[in-house]
Structure formats: C-alpha cells, structure tokens
C-alpha cells in the first residue's frame, strides 16, 4: 500500500476498475488502484464522479493542495466504520473535563518525548534545551485547563524550535523563529509542508477505525477540521517529520535551490523540493520496527493506527491510554 503524489497538470480517469493519469501532452499512465491508499494532488487535475465513485469503492482518500502546496481538503469515502457506541464513549471523555485533560496530557507527553529524543541525537550544547524543556514538563501534570496545557506545550515547542539551529549544520537553513502564516524561510516552509502531510496521513489512518475524527481532546472539537487528526499528529510530527527535515538538510539532499520565494516574503518548497521530501517521507512511513507488545514488525504508518486502537481501548474502559514513546 502506498501514497501517490501528482505534481503535473492533467486528467485523472477511471478505466474499468483502475485509474489512469493523462498529462497535458496526452501521455497516459495507468495506476493500479488496489495498491493505493491515498492520492495527493498538487497540480491542476480534472476528474469526474465515476472516478470518485471508484475511489469510494476502493477506500482511497483524495487530498488536494493549492498552488502553494498548502493542504486544501480531502475527498473521503463514505466511512464504512461507524459505531454509535464509540461516538457516545468518545463524547463522554470530552464532556468530562477530568477525562478530557487526561487524554490531552498524554498526547503532549508523547510529543515532548519525541522532541527530546530529537534534541538528544545532537550532543553538543543541547543540554540547555533539554533541561529547560524538562523543567516545563514537570508542570504538565498540574495543568488544570486545556488552555493552560496548550500554553505549556507552546512554551516547550518554542524552546524545541530554538534547538533546531543546533541540529542543523547548514547555516542557510538556520531560522529565527517558527512562523506559520506564512512561512518566511526554508525551515518554516519545510515544517509547514511536513505537518500538513502528516495531518493527512493521520486522517487516513483514523478513517480506518471507528473513532470520530471531529471529536478531539487537546484541540477544541471544531466544525471546520478533523481535529482529532491534529491531536494525534502532535505525537507523530516530532517523531516522523522533524527528524526527516534535519537529516535531509544535514545529508545535503535538501538544498537552497529547492525553495522559491513569492514577493520575497513567502517561502515555499518548489516541485523538486516537494518530490524529494515526499519520497523520503514515504520511505520513512514504510520503515518497520519490532513492536514490543505485538512482537511483530510494525511500520511507522501502522504505529499511527495502533495509537487509534489504544485510544479506543481507553474510551471503552478497557485499558488506560499511554502515548507512544519511541523506545528505539
């Protein structure tokens, strides 16, 4: 199973029970749909309902991105996994402030664990960041409200991003601070791009479970976004995306010519840069580790699904949720 990324403009067409991509010059390419999990469209693509119906039938999720590579939305097959029972249990853990903050806290513990893991990999002069983060971490247990918790997480993240310049050997990629809207330098562009891809991956995994993706614990359950996907992505962004960014730069795979500037203000990855990033991302997701309790080789992608399972087990009163803390 894999993800497909289309950068060219053209048309996606259904041919019998598989799909075909026809580019602007009329060149045809057949894509075996049974092996596809997600399709990401970065170019301008035409398609029709017969194509979309095939995606639904095969359970393939379609994600679209605008010209700048920002995530714009998804076409998600009618969910086959529904459970009124799970919905009710999930809601009960949001309505009760104690239960809600317990789960929210766990997400942050998982995230911080992975941030520290990243910093520790770069020995020289990183102690100061680790000590500062750990001094904030001890207060997480005392946070009484979600906004308070979010504030602590914000503080930790700020310190974490300060340590990025230490991890990154190439000065061209050093940055002042995290800026999302819009990203103004290459490192911010990479973080933003990586995070939006991470979000879509988590969403696709969530959809294979009975959890309701709109009911979240850490982020406010909002009407506009699948906020549970944002919650779970907190754990995986530092584990998967950040390590990828640092190694792509330090191994000189990602270079200055992979970025473009719009009105000399907004910095974006160009097509070449996105391709490099996504190729490395796909490789990372299919990498496996031996799971400690399952005693099986488990891919990084499947770790996301397992996180969903643990959350289900928690809300149905089976076993208390503990976040993933990479042990390898």
């Amino acid at each position, binding site marked *: 199973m894999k993800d497909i990324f289309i950068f060219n403009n053209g048309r996606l067409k259904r041919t019998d029970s598989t799909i075909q991509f026809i580019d602007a010059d009329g060149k045809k390419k057949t894509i075996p749909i049974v092996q596809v999990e997600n399709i990401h469209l970065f170019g301008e693509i035409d398609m029709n309902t017969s194509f979309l119906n095939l995606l639904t039938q095969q359970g393939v999720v379609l994600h679209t991105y605008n010209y700048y590579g920002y995530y714009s939305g998804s076409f998600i097959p009618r969910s086959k996994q529904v459970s*009124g029972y*799970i919905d009710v249990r999930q809601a009960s853990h949001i309505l009760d402030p104690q239960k809600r903050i317990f789960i929210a806290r766990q997400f942050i513990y998982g995230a911080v664990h992975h941030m520290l893991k990243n910093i520790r990999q770069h020995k020289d002069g990183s102690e100061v960041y680790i000590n500062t983060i750990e001094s904030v971490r001890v207060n997480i247990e005392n946070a009484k409200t979600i906004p308070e918790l979010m504030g602590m997480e914000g503080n930790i993240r700020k310190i974490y991003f300060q340590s990025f310049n230490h991890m990154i050997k190439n000065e061209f990629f050093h940055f002042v601070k995290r800026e999302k809207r819009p990203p103004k330098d290459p490192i911010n562009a990479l973080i933003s791009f990586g995070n939006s891809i991470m979000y879509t991956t988590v969403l696709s995994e969530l959809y294979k479970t009975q959890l309701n993706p709109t009911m979240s614990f850490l982020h406010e359950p909002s009407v506009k976004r699948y906020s549970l996907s944002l919650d779970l992505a907190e754990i995986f962004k530092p584990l998967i995306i950040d390590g990828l960014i640092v190694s792509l730069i330090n191994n000189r795979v990602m270079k200055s010519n992979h970025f473009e500037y719009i009105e000399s203000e907004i910095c974006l990855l160009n097509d070449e840069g996105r391709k490099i990033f996504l190729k490395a991302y796909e490789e990372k997701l299919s990498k496996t580790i031996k799971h*400690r*309790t*399952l005693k099986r080789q488990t891919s990084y992608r499947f770790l996301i699904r397992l996180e969903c*399972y*643990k959350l289900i087990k928690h809300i149905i009163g089976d*076993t208390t949720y*503990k976040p993933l803390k990479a*042990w390898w």
Partner: protein
Amino acid sequence: MLNVDELKATGLSVQYYLVCHRKLWLSTHQIQFEQDSDRVLEGKVLHEQTYNKHGNKEVLIDNLIKIDLFGDYVGEVKSSSRMQQSDRMQLLYYLYVLKQAGINKVGKLHYPKEKKVEEVHLTDAAVKEVEKVLIGIQVVKDKSTPPPLIKLPYCSKCAYYSFCWVGEVD
C-alpha cells in the same frame, strides 16, 4: 431472567461466543476489523467458488442468519476444520432457528480444502446446548466493558490481534 425465546443472535455471534468472548463483545459493539483481514477474504472467495451446482446458496433467514447452502440439508462451508466446535454450534443454531419455524433439517459442515464433510443433528441435548449459548451471548453483550484479555493459541491469526495486544511498556 433472560427469556431464551426472545434472544436473537447472528451465526457469527455464536461462533465468537465459543472462540473468544472478548471478540464477541467488541464485534457486537460495532468495533470490527474483519474487512481488512486476508482470511476473511479467503472465506468469501471459497464461498463463491464452491458448490456452484447446489440449488440455493446464501439464504438469509429472519434477517439474522445467512445459510450457505439450503436444500435437502443445511450446509455451512468453512475453510478449515480447526474451529470445528464453534462451526458445529453455529450450524446447530441454524437448525434450531429453522426448527422454531417448523422446518426440520439435518446439517452438514463442509471443509472443501480438506475434502471433509461432517453431519450435524439437532438432538434434544443439542437444543439445550444452543439455548445455553444464547443466554451466554446475551450475558457477554450486556457487560459494560470488554471481557479481559486472555491469550489463546489462535490470537495471532485473529483480525483483532493488533487491537487487543497493542500496549506500551513503561
């Protein structure tokens, strides 16, 4: 007190009750993982490819039980005889439902891959067995939390394996 005449179960619930109470609880609370399982797909294909000469395949009765083969006898097709106890109980339950509708039939378990067929008869003792199972199913379903984990030899082949056994080590 549960009244057995009012208890309805699917053939699958009967299977699960004998195989694993936890699986029964999860599946009846709409927590299902079977559709991505290769073994389930194998079963489906087997059903489609076997006994094509037989009159009625896949007959749905009472919107509750799906009978694989329905003719002179009631047949159930399985891919392996490793779970013969639960296969037998599932078929007995079908015979039991039919008997309540005034139809008396003999059952046969088909294991086409092993070229094996087992006859099943709904005796008076078997009726009692079925009723005990029906009450048991209801008791499991009514629990407020899933039954605890028990390591069974067939766990690793189960579609719920990852769900059940995932955890974090401190």
